[in-house]
């Protein structure tokens, strides 16, 4: 029931080797929806959560092809399925479609592999392998700055995963197992935990990106093609959030507790820093980039707190950020088709394109975290948890939504208000359908946050007893 999230994209990717031409895009959309649906069904029926060891892969090290899901991975798998479907739907008319969708499906497969792995080496394999299709997509289909962007992203991520691999092997030499279940009950000495947590975090912080490891972020988000930016910001960044929550916290609880003041400070400062930078941008993609940096670091605050509230908040905020950022990226691409650039234009587009404006407003509200949208419950939960642990961190973190609001409202004013624009047209039916589905999900998560929050609780007991 869980293997299919890896197998379906693999089949679609293999099908792209055949001369299927225009069929590739519908197939890619379908594979995203099918994976999201099958995970939803698995959660509903409660099957497949138990780790299933398929076969011993790297035998002398005891690495298994073991797959399974928990609450965190189920939520992020569903998010990933939806976003990959949306991204595929939005990539009509790309050059060299078969190569594009083959890489796209491989990327989807690797991302799903990160979430379903129940074996540390398999996790690393998927985590590292997803860089290859991502870098090729950026390199081959990106904007003007794509080469420098790809090089910087690849070098930074590879440096991170080099240290992560060192950490994984060091952990194996101590524990002699890669299985998540066995590692969860294996306890290292406290100093080793700190050292290993640092090695692991090096891999995850680069990818999150935790402040100050975000040097690749702006270039990559800006020069990526819109669909790739959707999944990069929406779900690939969440692989790092997931990894911190699912690997660092349960395997090195004491080490993470020792490190948490520093990590929290970095994340809180980074969140505020990103939000402030976002107010100073005059390119819509750059605004989204820095707002994402702020949101992701806020999510990191929630994870590093490692309290139940912080973790539930981080999961809900992850899902919310994924959906909201997907809408925003798709809408800025639509906007750029109308104004001819990613700048703010001369304003007044609201009169010409009311639906575009309406969806943009809703997405910005979701980004700010206005109650009723998905942004609210996660953010509030993280902030409450932060205040409970440290008022200073809480204060810093609670400034973030305020600054994001300033920046988001500023963008809305500059783009949509003012004297009516001379030209411009509203969203077409295809664009509209895609955005409306995503907005519906944003509202759904906002109104019924338990739909995601309850999933976090499934992983809860294991994570809350950590600090003993």
């Amino acid at each position, binding site marked *: 029931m869980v293997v299919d999230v890896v197998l379906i994209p693999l089949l679609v990717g293999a099908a792209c080797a055949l001369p299927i031409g225009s069929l590739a895009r519908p197939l890619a959309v379908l594979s995203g929806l099918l994976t999201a649906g099958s995970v939803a069904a698995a959660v509903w029926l409660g099957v497949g959560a138990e780790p299933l060891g398929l076969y011993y*892969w*790297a035998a002398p*090290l005891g690495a298994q092809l073991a797959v399974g899901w928990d609450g965190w991975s189920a939520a992020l798998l569903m998010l990933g399925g939806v976003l990959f479907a949306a991204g595929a739907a939005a990539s009509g008319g790309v050059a060299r479609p078969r190569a594009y969708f083959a890489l796209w499906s491989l990327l989807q497969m690797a991302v799903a592999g990160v979430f379903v792995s129940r074996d540390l080496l398999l996790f690393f394999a998927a985590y590292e*392998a997803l860089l290859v299709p991502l870098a090729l997509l950026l390199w081959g289909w990106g904007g003007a700055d794509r080469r420098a962007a790809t090089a910087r992203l690849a070098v930074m991520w*590879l440096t991170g995963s*080099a*240290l992560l691999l*060192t950490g994984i092997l060091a952990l194996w030499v101590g524990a002699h197992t890669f299985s998540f279940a066995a590692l969860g009950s294996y306890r290292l000495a406290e100093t080793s935990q700190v050292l290993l947590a640092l090695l692991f975090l090096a891999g995850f912080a680069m990818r999150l990106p935790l402040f100050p490891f975000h040097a690749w972020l702006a270039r990559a988000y800006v020069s990526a093609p819109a669909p790739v930016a959707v999944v990069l910001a929406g779900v690939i960044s969440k692989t790092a959030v997931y990894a911190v929550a699912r690997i660092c916290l349960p395997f090195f609880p004491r080490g993470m507790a020792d490190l948490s003041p520093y990590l929290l400070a970095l994340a809180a400062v980074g969140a505020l820093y990103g939000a402030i930078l976002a107010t100073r941008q005059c390119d819509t993609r750059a605004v989204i980039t820095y707002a994402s940096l702020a949101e992701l670091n806020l999510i990191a605050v929630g994870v590093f707190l490692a309290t139940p509230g912080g973790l539930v908040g981080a999961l809900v905020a992850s899902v919310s950020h994924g959906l909201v950022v997907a809408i925003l990226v798709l809408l800025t691409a639509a906007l750029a088709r109308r104004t001819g650039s990613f700048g703010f234009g001369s304003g007044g587009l609201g009169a010409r394109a009311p639906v575009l404006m309406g969806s943009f407003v809703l997405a910005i509200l979701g980004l700010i975290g206005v109650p009723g949208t998905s942004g609210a419950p996660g953010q509030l939960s993280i902030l409450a948890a932060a205040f409970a642990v440290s008022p200073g961190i809480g204060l810093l973190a609670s400034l973030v939504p305020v600054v994001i609001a300033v920046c988001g409202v500023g963008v809305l004013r500059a783009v949509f208000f003012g004297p009516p624009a001379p030209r411009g047209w509203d969203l077409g039916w295809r664009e509209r359908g895609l955005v409306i589905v995503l907005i519906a999900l944003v509202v759904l998560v906002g109104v019924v946050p338990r739909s995601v929050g309850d999933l976090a609780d499934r992983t809860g007991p294991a994570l809350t007893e950590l600090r003993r």
Partner: protein
Amino acid sequence: MSAAELGAMLPALALAGSAVLATVLAIPRRTGPRILAWLGALVAATVAGLALANGTGGGSPSIARDGASVFFIALIAMVTAVSCVLAAADPRRIARSKDETGLALFAACGAVIVVSAADLVVLFVGLALLAIPAYVLTGRAALAGDERVVRHFLLGATSSAVALYGIALLYAATGETGYLGLGRATHNPLYLAGLGLTLAGLLSHIASAPGHRWSIVTNIAVAGALLRLVAATATGEVGLDWQVALASVAAAALALSGVASIAERRVRRLAGYATIAQLGFVATAAASAALPAAAFALVTYSAVALGLFAGLAILPQREPVLDDLAGLARRRPLAVLALTLLVLGLVGVPPTAGFLAKVYVLEAAVRAQLLWLVVLGTLASVASTAAYARLVLACFAAPRLDAVAPSRMRVGTAVALVIAIAVVAAGLAPGALLDAAQTVRF
């Protein structure tokens, strides 16, 4: 010569006999180079099969016939066979390479002797038999026909001379040439100097080999001889601690190749640096006393290097640079697919065998408490990943207007593709290769 010794010598004798035969057959004007190369491939493949079928046991004090020698002989013979197939299909040198098969078989014979030598004199005979044809082959093929060939050849001769000097010192210190005697007098400075010189002479054969398919055999042979020498001296009556020496060699190889490859634009040199980095990983495994990991890494490296040279053989240039790869993705998509997979294997991206090789080697190094080497190795591999990724990305660039069309070398592309798929398959299901690597024992 007893039957056991004859059995141990059989692969070397078969190769030497067919080398002589190939050289004689090349004399008549009518024999073409292509048929000779195919015959050479057949002989080498047969030797590989025989070596595997005969198994271990027997041997003599001067020629070992254990798991390691069988493994390395089979590997050398297979690489030689594939290289001969590539030589037969290579359109560039086909007109004047009638002596190539003979030289390749002589080199393979020398390599076989080197990896199974259990005596310093035998080691040197093998080294000389390996080095001279190998230097002629690589020098002629990989370097332009100018003084660089001479310089290259002199460098090789110097390496052999250094090794010989080391062997002489070892003999002076122990009074014996057999590996069994080497473990006895460890604290003699003469002994240590001899061992160091022998090691340096062996290793500089790797360092001076330019990137070419014929240099793979040299590298396997040197790595095999090195592992045997380490094993012989580490398990003697007074064991030597090789860890520091080998770890320094590994660190130097990894760091230098990582740094040097970043700015390199010549394709063959780039592959040459990849060779050095891979052998750095083998040395890391040796420093951690992990023979199976070293063997696994060596097989992976040989396959990837062979595949790379097979795929790159479609470039008509004598000294291709990265810009010559431009437009290849459109013109030769299959070759580029193979190159992509092979580069992924080279830099150790999952799910290729290169990733598992890296994991096994580094795991052994962590276990041997060489964490600094692991961090250095992984970071150096980041640098080399950036360097080798250019090899793939260059293929996707728009071709220049004056670009020479790549040759249509179907066999080369097919070999590269088969090896690439095998590298991925071995990364997903490494069982058979792991079992083979476990048989490497001295």
